């Protein structure tokens, strides 16, 4: 089975989701789909070769990467003429200047990373869309990327108290680290790193694992791991309550 062939299925179909699926449903569907097409899965025995399964798993990752991010999802929906009230709500129930905020459903979210998609978002940006889709295929090399040190930024990192998800994203971007690189170094799946950055508690695993993720990720970014994970987990606890 090759890619073109599988692309006949929409991202929603690949994950067995309705077009109005919630974030929680997307995460659950993703985990389930990974199991169905995973190595040694009985459900595809005799029907899919190893190669077919791998191809399907890549597609599942790709579908997840797009659907879990409201912005990417909105672009995808527009490209495919899909009317999902989920993304419409996300975009239009907010003031124009605050579009970015509206993409995230958690209350503690402050701001999206600088390098994220343009504020005039509803316009389809094909290049940006392609870039998002290819995120899963990003550089996974374990070599530490180069970055231009910025004194102001370094001071900001030292002075930070809140450690919101978008601060993680901001510093990651400052240090030129791709999600693939972070995932490779920390052994934390990309979707969990993204969830940390979005402060999407519903997409994060159990508390004990989340603390672990936060500490490793903080260490990689050069934060005080105890301080950063404590600040973050306090919000997590409050939200879970």
């Amino acid at each position, binding site marked *: *089975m*090759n890619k*073109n*062939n599988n692309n*006949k*299925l929409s991202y929603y*179909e*690949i994950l*067995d989701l309705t077009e109005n699926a919630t974030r929680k449903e997307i995460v659950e569907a993703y985990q*389930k*789909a990974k*199991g*169905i097409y995973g190595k040694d*899965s*009985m*459900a*595809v*025995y*005799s*029907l*899919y070769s190893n190669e077919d399964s791998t191809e399907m798993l890549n597609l599942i990752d790709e579908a997840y990467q797009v659907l879990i991010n409201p912005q990417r999802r909105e672009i995808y929906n527009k490209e495919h003429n899909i009317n999902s009230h989920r993304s419409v709500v996300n975009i239009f129930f907010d003031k124009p200047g605050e579009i970015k905020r509206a993409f995230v459903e958690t209350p503690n979210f402050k701001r999206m990373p600088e390098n994220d998609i343009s504020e005039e978002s509803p316009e389809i940006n094909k290049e940006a869309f392609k870039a998002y889709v290819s995120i899963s295929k990003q550089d996974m090399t374990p070599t530490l990327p180069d970055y231009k040190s910025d004194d102001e930024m370094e001071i900001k990192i030292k002075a930070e108290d809140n450690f919101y998800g978008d601060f993680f994203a901001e510093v990651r971007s400052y240090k030129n680290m791709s999600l693939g690189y972070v995932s490779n170094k920390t052994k934390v799946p990309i979707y969990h790193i993204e969830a940390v950055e979005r402060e999407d508690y519903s997409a994060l695993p159990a508390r004990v694992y989340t603390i672990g993720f936060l500490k490793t990720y903080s260490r990689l970014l050069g934060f005080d791991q105890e301080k950063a994970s404590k600040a973050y987990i306090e919000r997590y606890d409050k939200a879970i309550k």
Partner: protein
Amino acid sequence: MSILWNKRTAGNQEQVPVETTEQTSGERSKHVWAVGGGKGGVGKTLIAANLGIMLSREAGKRVILVDLDLGGANLHTCIGIDLPKFTLSDFVQRDVDNLEELVVETPIKNLGLISGAQDFLDIANIKHSQKQRFLTHLKNLDADYIILDLGAGTTFNTLDFFLASDLGIITLVPEPTSIENVYRFIKSAFYRRLKTIESTLKIKQLIDEIMHKRVENNVNTPADLLTQIDAMDPVIGQKVRAEMQLFSPKLIINMVRSQTDVELGHAVSSVCKKYFGIDVELLGYIEYDNLVWQSVRKKAPILLEFPNSKLVSNFNRIYKKLLNPTIKFVDDVTERL
């Protein structure tokens, strides 16, 4: 009253599709259910027998079980009766003119049985005309529900009986061998069904053309084939999809030991949708229980022999869902395992 009998039969190159004529003098609505699954020992007979018992006892419906495991019939044993004097062999050899004459009553009220051929091994290869005669008689049986217990394998006869039913039930056990046979069974039935559509819609040329260029068109699965038909001729594509929609077997997962086994049922259903492009709904599950073999040894149906068994509630749930498809699948196996 309408006769709920879909014209769902399939043909192949050698045989013309079996035609079933609409019955006009029917007195009640009839449902023909078929239980198949490709592999032997996965519980087809157990499920057919117990669904029959539930329908006759709980719903008070007239039910006739038909043992179509030609050459290997033993449904009568599961129901607790001796091999009837007349079996399908007599009908096929025309010693008995009317299928109705073969119906023997069982100890369960409202439940009749037509036993499969036992004595002639080659009976499994009945001719096309015999099959047609049989199907015509079958739908004329005086019953509310006719339940066909199919044999293992994917012979044309078995597939045709499955496709000729209003509702096809596939039995699966959580083992690779069973999975493999289920997929093979669905694949065979899919193509046999498509063969019939091919002749009724006159699309043989179109399909040949697609299959000829399958590599360049990326047609690797039955679902791709449907998509490609759509792409080449949307009108025909829609008709083919509507016809294939009638082929939507239900799935029962048997010998369930854990929640993972139930999830396998959901997974198979999901894979079928993507691979074959058809809906294979999971009806329910039956837990693994030693009482099953004990009841077989006693030659008594489990529902009657062990009325307090957990299997009773398993069957009850499946039976309710069959009668009312809007009931949601309840997945609480973990509570008791």
